[in-house]
């Protein structure tokens, strides 16, 4: 075997290896591209459209549930809590208020709906309280609203109950 032939064979080997490596890298990149289509890069899955924790789903005979995520020490949360008590008395809606702590366990009526469930609250907390979520009969979160000081609370709760009773996409007016 001549030297020239040996060099040519070696060059062929290197070229073949380069080709294989390029194809492998290309396949890997295409795979990653396809995978990034359905995983959220932010690391936090969207709450709306996802099943709610079992502890806040509507029970048998209840059409839907309203879940409020509250803080123990904000005045606006107390207002939301009072509005929820009114809904609880009027409808066949399951009402749950998740808070991080209760200052006075014997405070007022309606404390049956107030609950300290750290796991469920952490699951539903989106960085702001008070927030109200609507859960449909199947146990899926269908809407989420942030509550501000100027929010029309009875109207908001009515809208959320209506939305949970007639499941549809979150395509609507603001």
């Amino acid at each position: 075997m001549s030297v020239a032939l040996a060099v040519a064979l070696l060059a062929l080997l290197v070229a073949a290896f380069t080709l294989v490596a390029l194809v492998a890298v290309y396949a890997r990149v295409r795979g990653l591209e396809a995978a990034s289509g359905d995983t959220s890069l932010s690391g936090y899955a969207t709450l709306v459209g996802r099943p709610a924790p079992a502890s806040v789903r509507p029970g048998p005979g209840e059409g839907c549930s309203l879940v409020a995520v509250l803080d123990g020490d904000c005045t606006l949360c107390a207002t939301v809590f009072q509005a929820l008590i009114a809904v609880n008395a009027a409808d066949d809606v399951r009402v749950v208020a998740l808070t991080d702590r209760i200052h006075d366990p014997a405070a007022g009526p309606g404390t049956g709906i107030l609950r300290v469930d750290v796991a469920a609250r952490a699951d539903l907390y989106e960085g702001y309280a008070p927030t109200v979520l609507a859960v449909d009969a199947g146990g899926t979160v269908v809407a989420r609203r942030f509550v501000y000081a100027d929010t029309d609370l009875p109207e908001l709760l009515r809208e959320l109950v209506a939305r949970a009773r007639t499941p549809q996409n979150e395509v609507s007016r603001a």
Partner: protein
Amino acid sequence: MAAGSMTQEAAGNGGRDVWRVAASGDPVELTLPTMLGDFRWYGNTRFTGPQLARQFFLAPAGEHRAIPDKILPGGRQMRKAMRGYDAVVFEASDRSDSALVLAGPYHEATTWFGGPAPTAAGIERLLRSFRFTDSANGATLVPASDMLVQQPDVSLIGRSAHSVLVVRRAAEMLPTLPEWAGLTLPGGELWRADRVLDRVTAGLVAGGPHQWRYVLAGPTLGMDLVLLEPESGRAPLPVPETQVVDALSVLTGRWAG
């Protein structure tokens, strides 16, 4: 929300400490003269990368309600709930303009498309390429991957009844600074610059502290201050320019990161 910024009176020197988060996620500490009043904080940021060139305006929550009411009345709206914020698309009824608003509980970020809104898949792709995190001290909007997408031109904009203050990173401020030395203040170097005004309003502000823009460059950030008064129908500040410069000596800040 009213509790938009953590503020506290600094000890006795007529300043007020403010701590904000810029759109890039960098913490910014500022000491502002109380003379300038209470600020509402806005912001601006830009993204450039392959198949991406987009500008976002940040504002306190709720300002996007002007879009369906005033800017694109009778248009189409599409709302999608994301973790921690809502993505709302507004489109004019004749599809001549559209906007995407990332509406968080405290702040919002708006971008305009200048044409028909992208398809649902296009919006989805756009949302996936950014990460929006809201907090009481400022919203963060960064690319999901910073290997391809760059984020130049990040600015914090404070607006009060009397002034507009634009805060930028020192590195981005540098090309716009004059060649000559400015007045040395505790917070950095101060220059006066011309304002862009038409002849009538220029006549209104001539000779007073409102005739100039004030540019302050510190070691980590640069600030650009405009005192709003006669040109926008308000009464002028009853102080001479020297006193304004005295007040500005309180103005300092630090852009971390």
